[in-house]
């Protein structure tokens, strides 16, 4: 995109749109904050499908470590390198990648201020910052505590997942691994239970007398029947899942003493503690006024434009989008509709009608044992929320189905290869 075109655009989009010299469509500045599942998918899709869009991606990290497949690292089935991706190919597709933090958004001037001091102008902005951990929501769980009780729930550079893995390696046989699992809504509803499974897979091979105590703030969870069938079959006697109604809510932790304390004051000593704290939308969504009092962001379910700040589209885990889960696949699927809607709006057209938003979450519960959940969603008529398509989707069949489980583990790997190529390829 030439500088002149861009500047001219800022001066008057409507005039340019009708100018005969622009037979296709004018260049327009799409800026994207966050280069994770939502943001990288949006940048890649925008460059492939709408080459006239001038795309800038703002992401502090030069390598993105995916949360998906991080649990496999705990079991020793993957290494860090195989779940890390660079932005070189996105840049080669013509996206301008700026490795910096977005610190503030001025929705009137339509600019983003970077931590480095520079300011980036946009015509439409996508914000996909993921989640922030609510330190302090569990008493005693502040940022310092994560060095003792890792959360391993935000991508970072992988240090949190590696720390948890090292702690498991140092665990004595017969030791206790505790998990504290939050209430809904949180990132990746089946994630904690895949993690329990992958930890059990490691322990079964290396510390067969160790135990897992999974303290839950809920009384039910995603793919519960399938997970529990697998635990009974693969790891009998190793996992105790303790729901809220058995005093499973952990309200306080004491990292120095390695203690989880329950709602009714029972102190559980653990050798390794994985605390997955309550969450909110990523910090920039809060400071820019995109989130409401719940800590999450309300959006138009057809365009993903913020319901609070015009010109800014929010996708991914930061949004309020039930019954859709906070998943990488949903971030990827909704990113594409958001970009298509933005392209239409920039051309003065109506956003694409009748979209379908798609989710599949595969979980590995053993080396060759996979299960899945599918959801097919649409915006409601008022564009205020989402509905699941009746009689579709759902979880893998239950029962003794070894071939189904073996194949789903293979297809899960294909999903991972496919979606990461769609983002970073």
């Amino acid at each position, binding site marked *: 995109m030439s500088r002149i075109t861009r500047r001219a655009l800022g001066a008057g989009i409507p005039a340019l749109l009708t100018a005969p010299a622009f037979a296709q469509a004018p260049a327009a500045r799409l800026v994207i904050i966050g280069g994770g599942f939502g943001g990288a998918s949006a940048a890649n899709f925008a460059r492939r499908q709408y080459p006239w869009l001038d795309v800038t991606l703002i992401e502090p990290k030069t390598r993105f470590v995916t949360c998906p497949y991080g649990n496999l690292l705990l079991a020793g089935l993957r290494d860090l390198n195989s779940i890390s991706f660079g932005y070189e190919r996105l840049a080669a597709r013509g996206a301008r990648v700026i490795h910096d933090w977005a610190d503030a958004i001025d929705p009137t001037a339509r600019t983003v201020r970077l931590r480095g001091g520079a300011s980036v102008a946009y015509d439409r902005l996508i914000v996909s910052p993921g989640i922030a951990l609510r330190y302090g929501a569990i008493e005693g769980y502040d940022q310092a505590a994560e060095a003792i009780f890792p959360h391993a729930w935000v991508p970072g550079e992988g240090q949190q997942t590696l720390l948890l893995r090292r702690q498991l390696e140092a665990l004595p046989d017969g030791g206790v691994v505790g998990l504290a699992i939050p209430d809904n809504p949180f990132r990746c509803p089946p994630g904690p239970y895949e993690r329990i499974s992958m930890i059990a897979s490691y322990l079964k091979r290396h510390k067969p007398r160790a135990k897992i105590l999974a303290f839950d703030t809920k009384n039910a969870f995603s793919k519960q029947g399938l997970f529990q069938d697998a635990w009974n079959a693969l790891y009998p006697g190793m996992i105790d899942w303790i729901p809220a109604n058995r005093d499973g809510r952990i309200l306080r932790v004491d990292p120095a003493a390695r203690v989880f304390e329950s709602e009714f004051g029972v102190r559980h000593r653990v050798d390794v503690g994985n605390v997955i704290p309550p969450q909110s939308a990523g910090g920039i969504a809060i400071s820019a006024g995109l989130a409401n009092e719940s800590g999450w962001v309300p959006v138009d379910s057809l365009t993903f434009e913020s319901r609070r700040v015009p010109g800014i589209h929010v996708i991914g885990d930061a949004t309020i989008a039930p019954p859709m889960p906070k998943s990488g696949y949903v971030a990827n699927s909704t990113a594409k509709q958001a970009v298509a809607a933005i392209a239409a709006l920039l051309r003065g057209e109506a956003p694409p009608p009748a979209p379908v938003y798609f989710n599949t979450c595969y979980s590995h519960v053993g080396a060759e044992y996979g299960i899945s959940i*599918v959801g097919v969603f649409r915006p409601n008529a008022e564009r205020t929320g989402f509905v699941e*398509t009746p009689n*579709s*989707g759902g979880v893998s069949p239950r029962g003794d189905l070894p071939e189904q489980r073996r194949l789903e583990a293979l297809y899960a790997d*294909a999903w991972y290869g496919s979606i990461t190529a769609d983002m970073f390829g």
Partner: protein
Amino acid sequence: MIRLCLLAFATLAAPALAANGPLLAQACAGCHGPNAAGQEATPGIAGVPAATIVAQMNAFRANERPATIMGRIARGYSDAEIAAIAEYLASRR
């Protein structure tokens, strides 16, 4: 029940959906590869005649074709949507 619901949806929304084929097919790319050309164990579905895709999707929907996951997926789309997706996939090489 399922049939009725999907048919109603298809009749109401058919004209808009054909144009939406490329966007709807994006959901398939998350497993079948970025260009739907196949990824590891998952078969390619790009460049396949539209009638073949439609027949396969109908068989998945009716549980007439064994599948680990495609039955659950195919039941999420109306006839018109499947036709639009199939038309787009057939045009991809």
